[in-house]
């Protein structure tokens, strides 16, 4: 992913910076759960077992760091059907989603 290498270098710093503001807001967390289940789920499956897009189970996500996953969520994957979710998510929120997916706490 050479095109993304710049982002992969700076994103962790951005995320650390924004992670200070944790997602204390219960209502927003609820929205994000809804987003994962129903909007991500429209391609990845309601239970994230996969569909048109790959499965997003902790097992399948093992090779990726939370930073990489957050970056994929935010920027999408050019050349595939995965769109960038930047307009709807902050970096901290993408990181929260990435961690939740990796641990299996989400959806």
């Amino acid at each position, binding site marked *: 992913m050479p095109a993304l290498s710049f982002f992969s270098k700076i994103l962790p710093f951005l995320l650390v910076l924004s992670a200070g503001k944790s997602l204390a807001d219960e209502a927003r967390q609820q929205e994000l759960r*809804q987003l994962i*289940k*129903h*909007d991500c*789920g*429209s*391609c990845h*499956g*309601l*239970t994230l*077992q*996969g*569909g*048109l897009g790959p499965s997003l189970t902790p097992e399948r996500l093992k090779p990726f760091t939370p930073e990489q996953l957050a970056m994929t969520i935010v920027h*999408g994957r050019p050349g595939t*059907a995965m*769109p*960038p979710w930047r*307009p*709807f998510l902050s970096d901290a929120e993408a990181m929260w989603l990435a961690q939740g997916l990796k641990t299996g706490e989400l959806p």
Partner: protein
Amino acid sequence: MRTAFRIATALLWLGVAHAEGPGPRATGDLGIIVEREHGSLQLIETSGNSILAKISGLGDLSHASAVFSRDERFAYVFGRDGGLTKVDMLERKIVGRVVQSGNSIGGAISQDGSLVAVSNYTPGGVKVFDARTLELVADIPAEFAKGKLSKVVGLVDAPGNRFVFSLWDAGEIWVADLSTPAKPVVDKYLDIGRNPYDGIITPDGRYYIAGLFGDDGLALLDLWQPQNGVKRILPGYGKGEEKLPVYKMPHLEGWAMVGGHAYLPAVGRHEVLVVDMSSWQVVKRIPARGQPVFVVGQPSGRHVWVNFAFPDNQYIQVIDTLDQRIVKTLEPGKGVLHLEFEPRGGEVWVSVRDLDQIHVYDTASYERQSLIESRKPSGIFLTPRAHRIGL
């Protein structure tokens, strides 16, 4: 007091009688609503707009769809988890269920009603079942290169007990003839374009059209003249324009076809396309509130109703086909996932996922006639689909 009780009892009785009627029940005004998150269905009737029963135990119903038996008694429900469930709408219960793959996307019923086909993502291919017993009749792996299976999308029935479908990973359209069910004959059309995401057959059974995610335009196969092969239509459409990110793939099912024009969703654009069905050229691009998902013609053909992908999925817009412009915008609430017209078009049923509601609108006045509680509803399927090619 006693009189009041008597009146109440009488009203109750009348209510039941109205909903059920005396004697045997027919199924022409029945339908099902998918409660995607709860693996359940609501059995509905459209004469009085009520729920008759709830049927549970259908597995993962995200992106579930259904077809009906030719007698309109049974629904075959295709779940995401590979489950194929047969529901008896008169007995109001599940009468058969097989988990036939790891991950599936949709299905179809054959012209003669004897076969039900399911399209699968994992393992990629189509499996065909006996509609009566749900026994496996034929297995058609979508192997496009040695050891490589493609996800299958856009599965429809076609006249002659055929099924037509598209291969997402391979960019192919296959036509499987199941005249001899155990020995399917498959015709393959290669290089039809990258990443077909869905397919539709015109109501006369003549044209199969696949939408392409990875290429401009759509792939068209004339089933009356299959020897002419697949041709690309609308190839120049949107060339040189940046596509928007797509947060939900459009569905082609339900395409409105009116007065020689087809109304279809533009991928990655806030537009409904109007296409001349003789020249297959775009004659108009109608700007819309968001990226269309379903573009469904009201049965009379006068109006076309459109819903949208995230983040605009709280809206519905209505197009007047006379002058091809938007005449109404409704805002039922977040997560409008599907709409289904009653067969004569007087009312339309709309699922509003995030409100946990079904809204039924009068199509002339746009007034809401009924509000029905439903848990995370998605697809709505009414039994008249039983008699339509491709549904």
